[in-house]
């Protein structure tokens, strides 16, 4: 895939991206400074964990899954994962985990571009298993390494409907976390500060959703590949004013593009939906391949994972609990299918691409027949790509390219009715 024949130059980047780069640099250097100078308590948090509690208590927060994605995108992951395998972390478990622990053991980090020699060392690690169990094992490795507390929420998984009893249980766990967090922060939790953090998270979520929904327009101004970069602040700065400011900027620019009829690709013949994790080490190659095929990947489950509709500053902990449970990844097949059907209609897609990530069963949604059921109910063609988020040994460039090209040819063969006709 490194040398694609059918590629196209992407449209010029977003004006907002220069601010994005600044924000991300400020984030990494800020957490690093706090860790080195002990100017603020530092916590690691899972990407859809209860970060608002940490914000309210003055923690600087680092997100190791973001580090995992950077390791994948920079392809450092392939150099270091073996170090984790050698100490007993299987090649079959989350390659974010094995990449990150491998990078720690090999003393390598892509954060060196921001002047960091390693991921900032935390005073506490906070997880939620709403996405997978691996995050807890991942954090416990570092808890043992550095003798720092590892606390978290053991969440429900595969939920059909989110019931009040589920929300109650998670709320109680969140309440129980507070004393441990306060002990490390050295201060009491200020309810007003928590409300503010939740309000900012909700605002960020709403603005991020607005940005993603801009691609319901034809042509779509933002592809899945763009969004995996643009989502940085929604992941690492959730609960801050800076993240909200950024998405106001981006949303305005996207609205301009929609008004001008300016798409992310020079020409958009087909529109696809991406389900599952990005293949970080092939993001650019895949973006070029799809662009060359004049096919825009206009929406994804992954980038929508940082949309939290339930957050409500008037009821912070309970709404945080509900938001954590309503996430796609925490849901059963039924709600997942309904979600994908709704997204397919909303974004008027011609086909669905499922990425079956070898080391991420929790975020691979083709293993229980969902793709086949969707094909029947939505009458939308489905493509399954075998690969992985970070472990490129599980991905075949040639096989992927052939399958993607064949899929687009399949859409062409289906005729004009299929081109944009999946969901008029």
């Amino acid at each position, binding site marked *: 895939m*490194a*040398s694609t024949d059918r590629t196209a130059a992407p449209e010029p980047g977003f004006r907002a991206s220069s601010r994005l780069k600044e924000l991300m640099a400020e984030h990494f250097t800020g957490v690093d400074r706090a860790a080195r100078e002990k100017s603020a308590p530092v916590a690691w948090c899972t990407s859809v964990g209860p970060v608002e509690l940490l914000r309210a208590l003055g923690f600087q927060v680092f997100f190791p899954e973001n580090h995992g994605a950077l390791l994948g995108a920079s392809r450092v992951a*392939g150099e270091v*994962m*073996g*170090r984790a*395998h*050698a*100490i007993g972390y299987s*090649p079959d478990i989350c390659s974010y985990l094995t990449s990150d622990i491998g990078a720690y053991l090999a003393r390598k980090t892509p954060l060196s571009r921001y002047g960091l020699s390693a991921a900032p060392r935390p005073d506490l690690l906070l997880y939620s298993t709403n996405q997978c169990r691996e995050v807890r094992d991942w954090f416990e490795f570092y808890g043992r390494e550095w003798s720092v507390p590892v606390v978290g929420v053991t969440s429900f998984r595969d939920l059909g409907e989110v019931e009040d009893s589920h929300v109650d249980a998670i709320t109680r766990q969140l309440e129980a976390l507070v004393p441990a967090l306060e002990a490390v922060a050295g201060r009491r939790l200020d309810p007003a500060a928590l409300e503010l953090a939740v309000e900012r998270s909700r605002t960020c979520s709403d603005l991020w959703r607005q940005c993603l929904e801009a691609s319901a327009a034809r042509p779509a101004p933002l592809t899945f590949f763009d969004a995996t970069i643009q989502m940085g602040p929604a992941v690492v700065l959730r609960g801050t004013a800076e993240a909200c400011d950024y998405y106001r900027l981006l949303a305005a620019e996207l609205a301009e593009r929609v008004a001008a009829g300016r798409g992310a690709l020079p020409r958009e013949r087909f529109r696809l939906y991406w389900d599952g994790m990005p293949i970080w080490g092939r993001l650019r190659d895949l973006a070029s391949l799809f662009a060359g095929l004049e096919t825009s990947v206009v929406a994804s489950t992954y980038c929508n994972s940082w949309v939290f509709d339930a957050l409500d500053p008037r009821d912070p902990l309970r709404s945080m609990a509900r938001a954590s449970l309503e996430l796609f990844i925490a849901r059963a097949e039924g709600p997942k299918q309904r979600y994908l059907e709704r997204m397919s209609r909303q974004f008027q897609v011609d086909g669905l691409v499922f990425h079956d990530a070898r080391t991420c069963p929790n975020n691979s949604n083709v293993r229980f027949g969902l793709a086949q059921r969707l094909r029947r109910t939505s009458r939308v063609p489905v493509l399954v790509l075998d690969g992985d988020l970070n472990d*490129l*040994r*599980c991905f*075949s*460039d*040639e*096989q992927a390219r052939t399958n993607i090209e064949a899929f687009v040819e399949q859409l062409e063969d289906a005729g004009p009715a299929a081109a944009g006709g999946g969901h008029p």
Partner: protein
Amino acid sequence: MIVAGVDLGTECVKTVVVDGDAKILGRATVPTRGYFQDCFQEATGTALQEAQVSASQLAAVCVTGFAASCAPISSRTMSETLCHARGAWHKTQGPMTVVDIGGRDPKVIHVDARGTVTSSRSVRKCGVGIGTFLMFASRHLDVHPTRLMDLASSAEKAAPVGSYCSVFAEVEVIELLRQGSTAGEIALGCMQSIADRILEIDHFEDPIFVTGGVCEYFPGVVKALASRSALAVEILPEPILTGAYGAALFALDQARG
């Protein structure tokens, strides 16, 4: 007292004939082809000839390896793990990590000061971690496997080959050729791939000694192992015979009662 050890491997069958002082009197290595029984006869016959003894003079024969059960004669069967550890320890007499890289599945074997195996782990079921993968690769590079090392030595950089599946890795080799990588770069990439899979098997403790046929024919794998791990890695003398020699030592134990 004269005994023999025979290692019936997937790529070669090796026989070592030793005397009562564990001194090698005869040795032979034949490529595995056709039936293992025939390879056994060829290797053992050659080794006995070199030792100038007849089969009837053997007080014991210990067999090991993938096809140990096919040996037409034997008085004892031992696992490859113990035979490689025993053969290596006899030469080093100290605690070590033995890395056995054969045609089938590389192993990392931890051996204590008394020569006891404390742990052993093989590569996972991954075609790219096995020596035979180099044979596949040489086919696509259109060279005899013995030329692969020369090719790899000529390369300034490796063309990375990374896949869990040797069939898909072969496709990668073809892709790399299409993209213009040199055969040397690909050969080096293949050797690094094997080294990487081995480094993932287990932790390593100094000193590290490599045994098995791959390092005899493809020392580039060992070089890659050392450079990618930043560890000092040594090849034992006559590495391909280590398992057979270890088996011969077990045969000696048996003959001595």
